[in-house]
């Protein structure tokens, strides 16, 4: 027998106080865990947004280079402007503007400062204004991705260095020698010396490998091979020592290569790319036109480009050309209309997100029509009308399992049923939308059933007692009251569908599509697939565009969810 009055005494015992303390501590701990979890997720979100926003900033603007181009009437047929070779015309214009650029590689570099798409834009503009043929007009050439990144500072900057001496120039044709009255170049030599030591180190590593080989062959008794290895080793060591000796020389002459920072001289408006250098003299290549003979430069500048050429896509010559154009005030920047208005392209500066955004729009439209207008009636039927028997329970289990099926399986289904069996067009939003619709269907059905279940039975009874039919009860009362819950499920399902890549790859929405889709039956791609593709492209300019595309995807998602939330607010009622 338990004496209840004894039990009630226990509430005042020290054990009870200890228990209470423990309980309170546990509650506090849980509270702090919660705060910690929320802070961590907030932090993760902030970092994500900060990083993506920061990376995407570069894709929001684009640079244009304004240059005069002569629309030679001989080359452009006024009645057939489309046929003229504007690409060649632009190249000729660049060659005339920068006559000092010669050599295959450097000329290609010259043509690469403007986008290949600029010629088509020029063609379209001239086609609209045929009376311009024969005139010289200024035109904003779209900068290429390399030029664009250079202007944005992605490849570092050319910086001036102070100097004290007077510069004596000796020009002989293409080549140029120069010397300063002071040891102006001494501070720049650290970089080249380090490069020499690095090269020496490479030789030493090679020497060590050869030595290893020599020992192995010696042990095998293959003395011919061993001798060969010994020679190689000695050669490498000699090379290393020579380089180290050169680096140690205070007044040595050093060669610049693609692993060292580039050095430039600027004589008035003319640039010189330095090729060899010592503490007070050097040689270089003239990029422009200056007087022959020996003379003293009154106005000269020493500049360094700290990123070695191997680390950047923009060559020294291109950097100089771009700097020259910038100094001439020909370079302007504006909002990146190509990014926001065009479709995909292999050229980063021409690539746009609009095609994928429109593709996503059509796909989502098909998805919501498919998933919502099948899912909600299915949920109403299962919840309000279906008898509770083995068959409906089987259907229920299947629906729950479908929600957990990996999305790529739905892609396979789309490929075999919609494209293979029904012969629908691949890469089209209608197929993509249907695949995503089937994927979203179980999510919406489950959410809708939960929402319908949550409608109080008293509302159903009230309506039934007034003589409403089952359909009227569902349509007038149950559906409106469960709509907020249904829309919540729809938001979740649609958000998942919007971010889905794998099933769309299966049905060919990963194709390279340049045109903006006009409707759900056109070929299209979608935002996440576009992001996936761009992230894979090697061009550096795609990095910012990928980040910007992610922002567009997030904005799309935000708009979609906002619409659903506003709709939900309209349906929300108290009871």
């Amino acid at each position, binding site marked *: 027998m338990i004496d209840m009055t004894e039990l009630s005494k226990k509430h005042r015992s020290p054990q009870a106080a200890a228990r209470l303390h423990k309980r309170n501590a546990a509650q506090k701990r849980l509270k702090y865990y919660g705060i910690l979890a929320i802070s961590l997720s907030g932090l993760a979100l902030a970092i994500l947004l900060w990083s993506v926003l920061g990376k995407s900033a570069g894709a929001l603007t684009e640079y244009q280079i304004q240059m005069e181009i002569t629309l030679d009437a001989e080359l452009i047929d006024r009645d057939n402007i489309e046929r003229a070779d504007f690409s060649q015309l632009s190249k000729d214009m660049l060659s005339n503007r920068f006559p000092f650029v010669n050599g295959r590689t450097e000329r290609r570099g010259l043509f690469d400062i403007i986008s290949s798409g600029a010629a088509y834009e020029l063609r379209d503009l001239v086609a609209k204004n045929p009376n311009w043929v024969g005139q010289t007009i200024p035109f904003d050439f779209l900068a290429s991705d390399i030029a664009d990144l250079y202007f944005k500072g992605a490849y570092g900057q050319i910086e001036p260095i102070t100097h004290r001496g007077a510069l004596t120039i000796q020009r002989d044709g293409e080549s140029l020698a120069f010397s300063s009255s002071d040891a102006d170049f001494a501070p720049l030599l650290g970089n080249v010396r380090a490069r020499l030591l690095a090269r020496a180190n490479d030789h030493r590593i090679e020497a060590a490998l050869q030595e290893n080989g020599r020992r192995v062959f010696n042990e095998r008794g293959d003395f011919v091979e061993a001798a060969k290895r010994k020679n190689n080793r000695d050669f490498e060591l000699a090379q290393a020592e020579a380089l180290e000796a050169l680096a140690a020389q205070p007044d040595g002459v050093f060669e610049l290569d693609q692993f060292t920072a580039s050095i430039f001289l600027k004589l008035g408006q003319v640039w010189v790319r330095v090729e060899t250098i010592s503490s007070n003299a050097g040689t270089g290549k003239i990029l422009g036109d200056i007087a022959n003979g020996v003379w003293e430069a009154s106005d000269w500048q020493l500049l360094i480009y700290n990123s070695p050429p191997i680390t950047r896509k923009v060559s020294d010559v291109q950097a100089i050309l771009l700097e020259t154009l910038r100094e001439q005030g020909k370079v302007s920047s504006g909002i990146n209309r190509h990014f926001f208005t065009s479709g995909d392209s292999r050229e980063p500066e021409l690539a746009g997100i609009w095609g994928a955004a429109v593709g996503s729009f059509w796909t989502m439209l098909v998805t919501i029509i498919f998933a919502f207008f099948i899912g909600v009636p299915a949920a109403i039927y299962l919840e309000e009308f279906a*008898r*509770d028997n083995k068959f409906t329970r089987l259907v229920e289990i299947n629906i729950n399992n479908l929600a957990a099926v990996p999305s790529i399986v739905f892609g396979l289904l789309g490929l075999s049923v919609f494209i293979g069996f029904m012969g629908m067009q691949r890469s089209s939003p209608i197929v993509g939308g249907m695949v995503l619709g089937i994927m979203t269907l179980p999510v919406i059905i489950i959410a809708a059933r939960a929402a319908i279940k949550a409608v*109080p039975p*008293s*509302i*159903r*009874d*009230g*309506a*039934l*007692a*007034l*003589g*409403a*039919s089952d359909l*009227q009860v569902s349509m*007038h*009362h149950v559906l409106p*009251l469960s709509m907020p819950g249904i829309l919540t499920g729809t938001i979740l399902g649609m958000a998942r569908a919007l971010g889905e890549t794998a099933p769309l790859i299966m049905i060919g929405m990963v194709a390279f599509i340049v045109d903006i889709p006009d409707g759900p039956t056109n070929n299209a791609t979608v935002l996440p697939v576009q992001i996936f593709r761009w992230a894979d492209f090697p061009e550096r300019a795609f990095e910012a565009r990928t980040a910007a595309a992610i922002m567009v995807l997030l904005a799309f998602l935000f708009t979609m969810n906002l619409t659903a939330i506003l709709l939900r607010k309209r349906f929300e*009622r*108290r*009871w």
Partner: protein
Amino acid sequence: MNKMTTKNVDVFYGKNHAIKDVSIDILDKTVTAFIGPSGCGKSTFLRCLNRMNDTISICRITGDLLMDGEDIYAKSVDPVQLRARVGMVFQKPNPFPKSIYDNVAYGPKIHGLVDSKSDLDEVVEKSLKRAAIWGEVKDRLNESGTSLSGGQQQRLCIARAIATAPEVLLMDEPASALDPIATAQIEELIDELRHSYSVVIVTHSMQQAARVSQKTAFFHMGDMVEYGDTSAIFTNPVDQRTQDYITGRFG
């Protein structure tokens, strides 16, 4: 005059025999009270009268239930039509989460009782007036029905039920969730409604049954023990169980 007649009605919930062989005549323009302890089957029986039990799949009903001499469980009778003629008010006020106006107008709308908006307005006003709530809500017809107090909500539900112009009004403990003032208002209302309808009320409160009803049926464990004039039941019960119940010895 008989409005509804039941003969040998049995109700089963699966294997549970909830109503055992109940025969009763419900008179027109009369308030009939069903009393009895909890779980005695009075609400179940009430729900047979407008076929609300049809929504429960395991529920089975045998026997004859007639309204104006017609079998209400006949194949030709649609429960939707029947419920329009037999209105019901529930224990817990259950206004729709719509405006007060829409709550009352819902029945006339779905049954096509009126042709014009002005007629509908009139029906709504009349119903609210008959439910004695018009004065309180006439200026806020567009507000949600759920914003009213409990007593007002219940009167709104009564207005909603009578707006469908039923012939019989079933009330399942309509005042059990209300305070004494609201209860008094509802009781007054029931007395008023008697002049137009046949009212059947299930109640736990014997005082209420005594106050509002002319006929009373006492249910116990699925049996209808005694049925007769209210005054007779309360002053001179025939059955010992009735006697015990009304004197408060059990239940």
